[in-house]
């Protein structure tokens, strides 16, 4: 485990964090803007806050939101900058170059790179330092949709191939759902949730994970295709999702937003909804006057449904009740 213990006061804002995160995998730091995500990251790096060793003695890799390179050095020398100043050399340069597709960029100058390319080089340079921990501050936020989509597969590879723990700051729940294993939620400088991604997303009591952000992620393996759809097995049932994904034994992530899940008492006989799963109501949590979040158990998996309090009252839904969950839409995150 990595212990995060930071207190910083800036004007009326106070960051007060004392928590532990896993020393493997990707930890998503999620929260609205102004919740202290970047400040926390800068504290870990030593760029802010007091005490602790100077920045250059902390063995971290830092990736800034704006792609930041040294404009007077070409790509190769940008990559070497940190490597030359690191003692361990645990990370293999050729592996980093290959993983991030940097081979063709090595002789280029930073001002000739696109934003996405520059960010890949910046990530590569941070990794070449062989850090004990990589800190990423919304590395996709400054890029447009197309660049983002270009870059995401590289993050998937990092996630799968890198053994260095990563702290990934984001305000985009889709990014977090796709890339992270662990979720750390900040609000006004305080930790409001800290746990396994899948379990934390299934909680109904965290306002920051409500509304548009409410929804779960399921691990599922693609088993067959039909009509341009792929059937996924999530262990406790099947889910159909649009798109043809290669049949493999590797589990993929399915994101199911709470607003796309509705509840019916009887199994519908004639419906256009493809995915109808038998479920048990585990928890009904009223969010505001109009809406509520319901946590549903489907075998060992969890779903969230966003419904109106009016519907709950009308149907008389209660904890422990057996119902059917209708999934209007499912997105395959990767």
């Amino acid at each position, binding site marked *: 485990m990595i212990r995060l213990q930071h207190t910083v006061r800036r004007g009326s804002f106070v960051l007060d964090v004392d928590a532990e995160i896993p020393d493997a995998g990707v930890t998503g730091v999620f929260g609205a803007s102004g919740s202290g995500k970047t400040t926390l990251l800068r504290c870990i790096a030593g760029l802010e806050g007091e005490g602790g060793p100077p920045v250059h003695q902390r063995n*971290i890799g830092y990736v800034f939101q704006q792609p930041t390179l040294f404009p007077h050095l070409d790509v190769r020398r940008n990559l070497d900058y940190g490597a030359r100043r690191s003692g361990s050399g645990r990370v293999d340069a050729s592996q980093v170059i290959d993983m991030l597709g940097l081979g063709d960029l090595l002789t280029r100058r930073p001002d000739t790179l696109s934003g996405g390319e520059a960010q890949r080089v910046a990530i590569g340079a941070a990794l070449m330092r062989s850090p004990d921990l990589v800190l990423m501050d919304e590395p996709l936020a400054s890029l447009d949709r197309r660049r983002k989509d270009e870059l995401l597969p590289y993050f998937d590879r990092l996630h799968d191939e890198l053994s260095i723990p990563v702290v990934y700051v984001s305000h985009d729940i889709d990014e977090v759902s796709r890339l992270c294993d662990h979720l750390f939620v900040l609000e006004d400088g305080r930790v409001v949730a800290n746990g396994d991604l899948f379990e934390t997303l299934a909680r109904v009591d965290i306002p920051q994970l409500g509304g548009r952000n409410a929804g779960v992620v399921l691990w599922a393996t693609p088993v067959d295709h039909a009509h341009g759809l792929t059937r996924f097995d999530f262990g406790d049932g099947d889910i159909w999702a649009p798109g043809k994904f290669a049949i493999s034994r590797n589990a993929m992530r399915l994101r199911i937003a709470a607003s796309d899940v509705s509840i019916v008492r009887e199994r519908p006989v004639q419906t256009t909804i493809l995915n109808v799963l038998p479920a048990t109501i585990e928890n009904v949590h009223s969010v505001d006057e109009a809406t509520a979040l319901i946590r549903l158990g489907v075998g060992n998996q969890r779903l969230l449904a966003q419904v109106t309090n009016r519907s709950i009252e009308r149907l008389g839904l209660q904890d422990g009740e057996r119902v059917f969950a209708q999934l209007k839409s499912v997105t395959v995150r990767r």
Partner: protein
Amino acid sequence: MTLYGPFWLSAQLALVTTLILLVAGAPVAWWLSQTESRFKPLVQTVVAMPIVLPPTVLGFYLLILLGPQGAIGGWWVQLTGSALTFSFTGLVIASCIYSLPFAVQPMQTAFEALPRRTLERAWTLGASRLDAFFSVAVPLSLRGFVSGAVLAFAHTLGEFGVVLMVGGNIPGETRVVSIAIYDHVETLDYSAAHQLSLLLLAFAFVVLLATFAWNRARVAR
């Protein structure tokens, strides 16, 4: 003493002064660009004083300070046995103070233009403050160093009032080109004054042109 002797003496003085100012001025410029200290305006003012101060005023105080009776001059006499005033060394010290703002300010401006993030990135990649200064800040502020060097050199080359006060007019030691030109005009030797003045004029033009062209080429690249 040849006609062009004073010119070479001035060039020597300007070169030595410029080199000293680049080395000594860079840390001052760096400090000014990075600090949030409440003493910053004070230091800035002291550095900028030679721009607004009449050279004779600056020269007068330097004469007192560097003279055998002065704080620095007296100590120098004890150390070396010779006086600082009316010597080349004395002129170098005076020129360094006189041209200080012209070297410091362009460097400071260049350092201030450096994105904070770029420095922070160097630190997170394992560079100490000093390492980051030399490996990132200096190469990225080259333009400021060149501007500072050109301005300090040119300004020292044209120095008159301070030299007159501190250095006098000793051929081969303190008789710099501006003093020589003044002398030639005084003695109505216009031809000699013309030759030296034209040389300075051409020199100033070529140096500035080269600097601007270099800047343009750098921006285009």
